[in-house]
């Protein structure tokens, strides 16, 4: 893709200042005693046909972002535009209509299929809810989709427990694709799978993207997987987006100290002793009570006074390369 045409491509997804706080209630009156700042003031866009990878460690808010922009959980504040439409203000029929275009693939292929429903019916359910075509057409569409993800017609009558993890994830993909959506949130779609199966599913997701012109938000904790599938990559830390850039740029020249540490921490097969590892001190702090200023400062080797006091802004440090860090953007 040439750079010029990239800028001209329309944004399919535009998220602005998204915030999601989960209240923690306590006492006999169940008053709000604290709140978990799962996602705090996050903004990004995804172009039509693009894959935005989102990485971060557990508790960084990446799954909450995926769920909130689909309105599977309601946001605390912020807005999200799908094709220019404000998704957070939609209600009733309009919301249902837009949900056809936005689907999700879940992490756990075991927990996300109803064990008592034949998988064909699970895949078909969306078509029924949205009243698309006759019963015969719905059935045919289901079988076509199952075949497209590498399953057979006779599989439609079987139950989830009869399938392996990789096959179940294929069923999850078929279900997400049944309504012919434009946008899919892939929430850790391969992390529960064995490596040899993982590559099968990653290749399938890529083929489907080209075939149907899909736009992905690909959430994962595995940076190698995200590098493989994404056009651009966003790095999250404790509810904040700390860096966003084109894939090559981010992996070759990470700006944020957290991204640098994260990349250096990944063991690479056959590269022992050839790289320097940055070992971060301590654990990820709790999002219940995040550190002041830059949330990364207690673990950062470059932390200065200002990092403890003021939150760094998310700035386009270089063209198309954003970072939130006082060290990078003094």
């Amino acid at each position: 893709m040439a750079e010029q045409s990239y800028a001209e491509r329309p944004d399919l997804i535009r998220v602005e200042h998204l915030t999601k706080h989960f209240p923690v209630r306590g006492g006999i009156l169940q008053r709000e005693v604290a709140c978990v700042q799962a996602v705090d003031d996050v903004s990004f866009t995804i172009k039509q046909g693009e894959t935005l990878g989102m990485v971060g460690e557990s508790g960084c808010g990446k799954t909450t972002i995926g769920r909130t922009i689909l309105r599977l959980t309601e946001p605390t504040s912020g807005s999200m535009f799908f094709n220019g439409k404000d998704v957070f203000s939609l209600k009733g029929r309009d919301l249902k209509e837009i949900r056809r275009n936005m689907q999700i693939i879940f992490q756990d292929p075991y927990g996300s299929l109803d064990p008592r429903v034949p998988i064909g019916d699970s895949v078909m359910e969306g078509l029924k809810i949205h009243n698309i075509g006759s019963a015969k057409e719905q059935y045919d569409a289901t079988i076509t989709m199952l075949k497209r993800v590498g399953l057979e017609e006779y599989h439609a009558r079987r139950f989830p427990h009869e399938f392996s993890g990789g096959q179940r994830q294929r069923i999850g993909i078929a279900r997400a694709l049944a309504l012919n959506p434009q946008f899919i949130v892939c929430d850790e779609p391969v992390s529960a799978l064995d490596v040899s199966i993982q590559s099968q599913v990653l290749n399938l997701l890529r083929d489907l993207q080209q075939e149907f012109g899909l736009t992905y938000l690909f959430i994962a904790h595995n940076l190698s997987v995200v590098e493989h599938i994404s056009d651009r990559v966003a790095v999250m830390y404790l509810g904040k987006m700390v860096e966003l850039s084109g894939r090559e740029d981010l992996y070759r020249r990470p700006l944020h100290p957290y991204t640098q540490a994260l990349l250096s921490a990944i063991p690479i097969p056959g590269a022992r002793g050839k790289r320097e590892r940055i070992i971060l001190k301590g654990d990820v702090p709790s999002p219940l009570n995040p550190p002041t200023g830059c949330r990364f400062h207690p673990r950062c080797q470059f932390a200065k006074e200002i990092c403890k006091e003021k939150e760094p802004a998310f700035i386009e440090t270089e063209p198309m390369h954003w970072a939130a860090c006082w060290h990078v953007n003094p």
Partner: protein
Amino acid sequence: MENSDPLLQVKDLHTYFYTDDGVVKAVDGVDFEVFPGEILGLVGESGCGKSVTSFSIMRLVGVPGKIVSGEILFEGQDLLKMPEAEMVKMRGNRLSMIFQQPQTSLNPVFTAGDQVSEVLEIHQNMPHEKAWERAVELLRLVGIPDPAKKASAFPHEMSGGQAQRVMIAMGLALNPRLLIADEPTTALDVTIQAQILDLMLDLRKKTGASIILITHDLGVISDMADRVAVMYAGQIVEQCKVDVLFEKPYHPYSQGLIGSIPVLGRVADRLEVIPGNVPNLIDLPAGCRFAPRCRLREKYNLDICSQQKPSLEEIQPGHLVRCWLYQSTTGHQAPIKIS
């Protein structure tokens, strides 16, 4: 390292599970050695028998599982012939194990200090106060911040990384000669994983213990292990020095496994794929267990693969492979010659 006698020798180990559906051959003829001070990586996908192998060494295989045959020689003694009372003394003392899920492997109703000091009280008859002091020292050694205070913390008050450090402290309390680490970092985030792996290398340097590191992550193996054994469907299919495996894997399964993982900094348009799924351990293929998924079998048009079982042969010094591509027998000429 290889000049000395092996610390642990596993010989032709078979561990089966007798289920209602049939006999699950989880470990079916596994041989390997661990030398003093060495880290042996055991790698494979879920269900390949790597965890059952480690539970067999600890003699912790429960019903319906049974160690059917084989020998496990540890410091020259066969663990499988040892009376249970002696084995109890072995566990924790000379052999020790840390598990994948640190938070569920610790007892939720006892503090970290209790659990570490218990080991010392039982095995060394240490009085409680002294054991507690030693426990705090051990917690400091594994990098728990403020160990005197954290010793009174319960498992739910700790993060995953901290809980794994407590597990490691328990595992090392009696200075064992062999530590079996079963997916010690799989449940942890990468930055925490890096801390724990660093800690394990450091402790090996200090105590000289050998480690069997079980994982499905080839990156971890590459960073940590001296030698590696690749397991598939209950058997070892390739065993060699770790850098040799990544430079020149011989077994088609090892090749597929290495090719199918996305590697940081090496972007490929498509990933290599091993077709199909792992075989059912109740109903195994007659010949080579990897034959139904093997591309090279098709390429060289080998019939023997689906008929006869290959054995684990040393095709180069210290490099063992279980594959007909490199082995000849009556009526079969190995298509690939290795000088």
